[in-house]
């Protein structure tokens, strides 16, 4: 389906909803075509291909609200679906805060090209996909050495279009493509241990994707580093969280920034606006306008015009994620309801230079399990990585744990490296945190 077809269906849905008794409505429709090709043992293991279309409609009726999604787009089914949705919405409790946004927040949108759509996607043929995956697998095998048990590689690409319109005048459309390539390896280690490591990248355009050779080699390298892992004695050490893993730690800090968490008192950042929540090295920015950024956008889920926003500035909390509904409930100005791209501005030194400076510590390359309590900030997680001494990695470590509280953790952020990980909407550099209790034996 092309954008204008999606737009027509969205307009039809709004009309049906109003016809069935809704006062206002907002509709989102997305259409996506994705192809996956996976290889193992030098032959295709999986081939998967499909198109999807999904429609979501939010209904505002008599001060009441509901939200529905469906993949059943047969018109007669849709009619029944919408009529039922409106009828049941009217049975809910009235909620004075639930409205469509004030249309002034739709204003000022620049429909600029954010580099999210690769016009060359149509020319990405099945044989290109197979060649890419084969090359990644071959590179991993070549680099893996004699202990290789298994190597697999996978490519996934998609082209998507979506539209959103609301009955009070919002209209937005978006086209995007994505390419991802992954390789993973299992090696035989001592006893029954078979460490598995991986590497991947995902980009909006094909030419930004690293070469399959790079991905394959990286997967082999990452896996070899897991060999001979030991659990060390419990010790308090500086820890460097490598860039591709740093987003996990940040996630526990993000959820408490949401309007819902603030309103429902499930946030350790409640009452912390303007206060210190981390060290001077901790600056966190939401930037929707990064070229080719996987979270880039010109409007958010409410239709609010996207803006760059500083969340944390040199350790001081400056903003929350406040969507339209919770802005009304809290009596605050809306910001945006969800993250776009998140960046911690990179530092000036490489991880290896920082390691030399620190002398002894843990280079944290993997997480396992773990969770974070948004109300209290308590967090605990399993880790694996490399112990370094005199600035040089000397021993792989696994089956260890760290436990902390976010309000104390970010205070001990002593440096950020110069290496932002660009294959994620969270473009994190490696983070250096001092005095972490690393639990082992």
């Amino acid at each position, binding site marked *: 389906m092309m954008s204008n077809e999606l737009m027509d269906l969205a307009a039809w849905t709004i009309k049906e909803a109003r016809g069935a008794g809704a006062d206002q409505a907002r509709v989102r429709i997305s259409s996506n075509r994705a192809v996956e090709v996976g290889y193992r043992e030098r032959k295709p293991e999986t081939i998967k291909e499909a*198109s999807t279309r999904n429609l979501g409609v939010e209904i505002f009726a008599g001060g009441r*609200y509901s939200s529905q999604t469906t993949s059943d787009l047969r018109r007669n089914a849709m009619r029944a679906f919408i009529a039922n949705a409106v009828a049941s919405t009217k049975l809910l409790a009235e909620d004075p805060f639930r409205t469509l946004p004030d249309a002034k927040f739709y204003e000022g949108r620049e429909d600029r090209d954010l580099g999210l759509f690769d016009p060359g996607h149509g020319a990405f043929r099945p044989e290109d996909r197979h060649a890419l995956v084969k090359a990644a697998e071959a590179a991993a095998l070549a680099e893996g050495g004699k202990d290789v048990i298994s190597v697999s590689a996978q490519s996934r690409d998609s082209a998507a279009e979506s539209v959103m319109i609301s009955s009070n005048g919002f209209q937005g459309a978006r086209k995007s493509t994505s390419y991802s390539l992954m390789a993973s390896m299992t090696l035989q280690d001592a006893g029954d241990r078979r460490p598995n490591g991986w590497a991947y990248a995902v980009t909006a355009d094909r030419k930004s994707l690293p070469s399959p050779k790079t991905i394959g080699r990286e997967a082999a390298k990452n896996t070899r580093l*897991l060999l001979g892992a030991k659990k060390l004695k419990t010790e308090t050490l500086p820890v460097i969280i490598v860039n591709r893993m740093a987003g996990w730690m940040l996630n526990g800090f993000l959820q408490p920034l949401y309007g819902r968490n603030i309103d429902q008192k*499930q946030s350790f950042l409640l009452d912390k606006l303007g206060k210190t929540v981390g060290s001077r090295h901790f600056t966190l920015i939401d930037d929707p306008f990064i070229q080719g950024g996987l979270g880039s956008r010109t409007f958010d889920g409410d239709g609010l015009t996207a803006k760059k926003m500083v969340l944390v500035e040199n350790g001081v909390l400056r903003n929350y994620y406040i969507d339209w509904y919770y802005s009304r409930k809290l009596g605050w100005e809306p910001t945006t309801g969800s993250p776009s791209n998140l960046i911690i501005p990179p530092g000036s030194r490489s991880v290896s230079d920082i390691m030399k400076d620190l002398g002894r510590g843990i280079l944290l390359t993997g997480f396992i*399990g773990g969770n974070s309590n948004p109300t209290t900030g308590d967090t*605990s997680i399993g880790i694996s990585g490399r112990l370094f001494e005199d600035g040089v990695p000397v021993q792989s470590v696994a089956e260890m744990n*760290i436990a902390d509280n976010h309000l104390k953790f970010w205070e001990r952020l002593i440096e950020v490296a110069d290496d932002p990980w660009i294959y994620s909407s969270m473009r994190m550099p490696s983070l250096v945190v001092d005095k972490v*209790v690393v*639990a082992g*034996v």
Partner: protein
Amino acid sequence: MRQITRRRFLEATAKAAAAGLAAPVLAHGWSVLPSAAVEAGYFEREFGISDALCRKILGEALSRGGDFADVFFEHTVSNWIVLEDGKVNRAVSDIALGAGIRTVKGDQVGYGFTQELTESAMITAAGTAATIASGTAGKAVARSIAVKNLDSYPLEKRLSSVPLESKLPLVLDVNEKCFDRSPLVVKVTAQFHDQERRILVVSSDGRRAEDLQPRSYLAAFVVAEKNGRREQFYANLGGRRGFDFYTSADVEEIARKAVDDAVILFDAVQPPAGEIPVVLGPGVTGVLLHEAIGHGMEADFNRKNVSTYATMIGKKVAEPFVTIVDDGTLPHMLGSINIDDEGIPGQRTVLVENGILRSYMHDRISARHYGLEPTGNGRRQSYQHYPVPRMRNTYMEAGPAGVEDVIRRAGNGIYVQDVSNGEVHIGEGDFAFYVSQGRMIENGKLGAPIKDVNIMGNGPRMLRNIILVGNDFEMSRGGMGACGKSGQAVPCGFGQPTCLVKSLTVGGVKS
């Protein structure tokens, strides 16, 4: 079930709707059925999916020489109602409709799916699946014969026949009971979820299996405040349950657990860090088994030789009092399935029998690889995914020890009462689970509460280190448990008796 013609049934539905008796949130007009039993032929009746059409689709799927093909139809209607600040002011619903076609060649899989159940769309998807093979000769497609449905979750009344008005008081009641329970409660959100998942699997070797898989839960999330500090907790009950399951006593139980477990956290201490004895309380702590052994025993990892358990079948892995089972047939449990998503009947699979490793969990591909029968573990999140071996309800059977003895034997350690999530690295066998509620054990007695701590171990080593198993077996009665693998989430059940693990690594803050 009582036979009823489609016409009479539509009339009955229309009358009920007109009288305001039945207002299924978002179901189609025809989805209010008079009986709770699994009625066969749903996709044929509603979408014209005949056996002849399936054979045509499967013929296309095998047109390039695949060994085997199947087509999976799904129609799932899910509803949530949400209470916040004392009002049920949000309803969310989702309808998933589609069909996925799989072609298997050896251990290779081709997969295509469509959301339009039209012949041309399905033939196109089948053509995509077929490309995993590169020959020409198509295998013959057998006429399908219905697989017997076990009926492990019969309901008095279908979830889709419960009108929204009936659900509202349930959620309001849990809110009220939470606030009544303690003056420290400052916020409550509550929700009721119900889902009906209808599936039909037809395979090229002539199996036709159909199921209606209900699922529901009632949940409360509580925030308590004391001296400017806040703590949160939650509780839920559910499973493959009908609406009548949720009695006033259940609502009471949810409120009691959510509130008491939030309030007790004001007294919680940080546990020590390092290797210490761990006692797992009964029920939901079975997440430990799910991570420590369950995933490693899924046969796809073993046929690829990437699981730490790949060479351990027939070997002693635990003490003789340890028996671990994965079971799809427990009545009304969240992970129960009458048939799996490949059309194989749900069954009971013993993974560890009296300490000996007995069987992996198989889908059709791994079963053929090992020359065994599939175990009914082929599951998928939806029609958008091909099935892979997955757990159902995984639990350890009761042992001989008294519960107090188990705690006493731990000496100094920690007691795990509630677990929120876990993860495993299949190849290393290293696993983790997150303790949201527990106690210190001091001199063999339960002490101060603890919270928010990750615990790590190694699967095979942990199994050997289970030194005492209690006689208080319990299944988790929760309805929210889901397991993720290969980007797919499926509902799973957990259970176990109280047991003592000699040592695990606890991620506390004190050295």
